């Protein structure tokens, strides 16, 4: 079998590959800035809250033994035996009949209206409800925690879909050029030009308010342009580098050149622009929920929480907490994006 042609070792070494070493360098440079550390902490906290929202704030315990029966994670398994129960009732029965219960940190679900048997509307922060209750008597902190999930789901989900499409379009435009490039450029320009909110609202109006996924797709449809543009520009820049030309001269296939010599170099800037679009997707989602055309009502979303605050004349916590959470998360995502681009520049 003939040996496949490859570039000399010396050339291979100067290509800034995303090796484990390079990655370690990027991370080291990234964590030099205090702002970057703050951003990373916020992001990890948000991811933690989003992933384990059901363990942090739920109306059913994490695990309990009730009437001789063991229930583990009943909130996730939708156990029939515990239908109609909540943390408070289980605690009362456990105290009466024996057994044990492991309540979550915040023993209220995000959509649970009845707390402690008596409903508190717009309750002030207290020991039971650390951030008070909203106009429907729901625990604000629980809704805030579950809001992380909505925000990140929309942000990351639409970023992934948008980035997939953007990268595919940008890369093929740069690689094949010609008519495809022209069409792709006009497409990108067209979608950049549409005011995102008007477009999404009009489609929501025409199609009717749909599921969360419809929203994710709509936001993705408006925020893929930056990624596409970044991909195309980076590809064109790298395609003229001498080592890519050398690889082409050696007769390597398209896929091989892309995988070994181009993707490692260009994935940094693309990652940066994709990170930016996470932030804008989150802002768009909360804005839509705020004006009442975003995530459907009972699902907790920060924009929806602020809308509740607006309509219920609430003072204080209800109108601050979701806004602060949103601002922090957006700030963190932006900082991460900037920190990454700086760290990548220096490596």
């Amino acid at each position, binding site marked *: 079998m003939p040996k496949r042609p490859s570039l000399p070792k010396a050339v291979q070494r100067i290509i800034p590959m995303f090796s484990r070493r390079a990655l370690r360098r990027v991370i080291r440079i990234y964590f030099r800035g205090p702002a970057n550390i703050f951003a990373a902490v916020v992001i990890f906290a948000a991811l933690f809250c989003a992933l384990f929202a059901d363990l942090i704030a739920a109306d059913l315990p994490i695990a309990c033994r009730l009437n001789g029966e063991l229930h583990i994670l009943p909130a996730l398994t939708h156990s029939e035996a515990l239908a109609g129960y909540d943390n408070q009732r289980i605690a009362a029965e456990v105290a009466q009949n024996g057994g044990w219960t492991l309540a979550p940190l915040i023993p209220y679900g995000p959509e649970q209206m009845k707390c402690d048997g008596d409903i508190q509307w717009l309750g002030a922060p207290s020991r039971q409800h650390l951030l008070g209750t909203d106009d429907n008597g729901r625990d604000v902190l629980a809704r805030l925690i579950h809001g992380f999930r909505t925000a990140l789901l929309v942000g990351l989900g639409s970023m992934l879909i948008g980035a997939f499409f953007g990268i595919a379009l940008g890369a093929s435009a740069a690689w094949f050029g010609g008519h495809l490039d022209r069409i792709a450029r006009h497409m990108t320009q067209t979608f950049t030009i549409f005011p995102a909110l008007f*477009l999404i609202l009009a489609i929501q109006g025409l199609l009717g308010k749909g599921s969360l996924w419809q929203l994710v797709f709509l936001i993705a449809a408006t925020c893929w342009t930056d990624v596409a543009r970044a991909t195309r520009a980076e590809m064109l820049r790298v395609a003229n580098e001498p080592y890519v030309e050398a690889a082409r001269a050696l007769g390597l296939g398209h896929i091989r050149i892309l995988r070994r010599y181009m993707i490692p170099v260009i994935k940094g800037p693309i990652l940066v622009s994709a990170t930016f679009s996470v932030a804008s997707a989150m802002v768009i989602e909360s804005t839509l929920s705020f004006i009442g055309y975003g995530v459907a009502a009972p699902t907790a979303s920060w924009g929806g929480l602020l809308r509740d605050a607006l309509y219920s004349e609430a003072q204080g916590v209800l109108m601050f907490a979701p806004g602060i959470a949103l601002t922090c998360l957006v700030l963190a995502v*932006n900082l991460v994006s900037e920190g990454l681009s700086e760290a990548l520049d220096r490596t």
Partner: protein
Amino acid sequence: MLRFLLRRIVTLIPTVFGIALFTFILINLALDRSSAHTDTHAHALDASQAFAPPPAFAVNDDESPDAYQRALALHLPLFLNPAIEDIQTHTARSLIQLQQPDTRRRAIRDLIHRGAAVIPYLVPELPHLPPDARDAALEALEAIAQRIGNHEELALAEDPAAYWARYHSVYGSDYASARVTRLIRRLVRHRDTLALHELRRLDTFILPELMSTLADDKLDLDARAQLVGLLCDISGRNDPLPPGATAEQIRENQLRWQEWWHQRYDLYTAFTGLRRLTGTVTETRFFHWMRRVLTLDFGVSAKDGRPIRLILAKRLPITLWLSGLAMLLAYLVAIPTGIITAMKPGTRLDRALSWFFAVGYAVPSFWLAMLVLRFLVHPSSLSWLSNHDPSYLAGSTHYWEELHFGAFLRQLIVPVLCLSSVSVAMFSRFQRASMLRIAQADFVRTARAKGLSETQVIFRHALRSGLVPLVTLMAVQMPFLISGALVIEWMFGIPGMGLETLDAIRSADYTWLIAVVTVTAIITIVASILADILYALVDPRILPGRSTARSH
């Protein structure tokens, strides 16, 4: 410069086309879905609109559920129309339907709705029809006779079929568009009552010529009022021109009638010759849609029948002022702060401002507006807000339209501040970054080495290049600001395009939604052309013949 501009505009044509195509696909996806279950045959008129004797008789079918479908030409094929439908084919179909007992009633109703325009196509066919179909056709003709005023004569005649044959042989030559044009001209110029009488007799047949006469702006008010009155009589749609109407009223009336005609001209017009040939392309959904986009004529609102163009004329300027002022503010703040922070990077001021703008960039404008409304600005100082709740158009519209310009601008101060917060932060950061980059450029170092003062270095040399990235931001920022204006309008109850859009969603006003998407896209296109002009002013290197063209 001009050549550069022209080239930019030409390259934008595919974008405009793309936008039209995109919104077109959107409409068809959305509306096909919503109309699939209503099951209305596009050509059939609403069954509830049974024939009523004159004068309440109406050809008008504004209320029918497929009115908005006709407005968007959903009854036509998408891109190519091999079988164009006009009055001739409609009548021929009705004639076939007359021969089937189960479709007979509908055929009679359709024929009556077409009015006298069917006479040239129906009467010559009468002898060839089977007896029961002929009776049905005569029934339809009797109703038409009541409209055109020869029903008494008809009642006296012993054989109606023979009467109609005679009628056609006597008056058949009147059914010609040249004759109609002449009659209308006589009516307009000489107020000829005989001409009016004859036009009444020709009934719906005169509609194509009548509408093209009305489209003429130079028509004087009396003649126009008379023609519109005639149109009301014929169509049964009660929308006359009041005596002493203002120019605006005339325009609104004209736009409404134009839209009415646009939706049903194929029911009364015979496509002949060239019109028939080009109809393959023009009588399609896509062509109708392109025509609407290019003429910016989006018909009438499905909500209350006002012409969209007039609503836009009221709402658009408010939104443009709001977002334009926000943009201006962003530039006014960003350029100085960007320079100041870039002059002394790393100082306490620079770091403080950097953090301030980083946070400002992350604070969503709707939350800021909410906080401002709750804590900083007492709602009573914004007198159009009757209470604290954001009110949809209710009440505020009138208040805003009454404002004189100075008061209007004063009321915009707080909303503009809220709207521009994100842009101010973004622009400042951009300006700082670009100034820092320029400060290390060779030509700046040269200027410094020549012994120029720091002020001269910055304002003479660095600033001009430092402005370039900021100028290009304008094109990107305009769609963002227009989107942001939607929420700000909602929060402050400003009756701009955004508030109207939210109102339209609640009342399922598709025509407005479609119009607003197209119009906002066009505004941002204009903004991007503007950005290009500014770009060329700041950085003449991009002009053709100066250097290589800028890469995209």
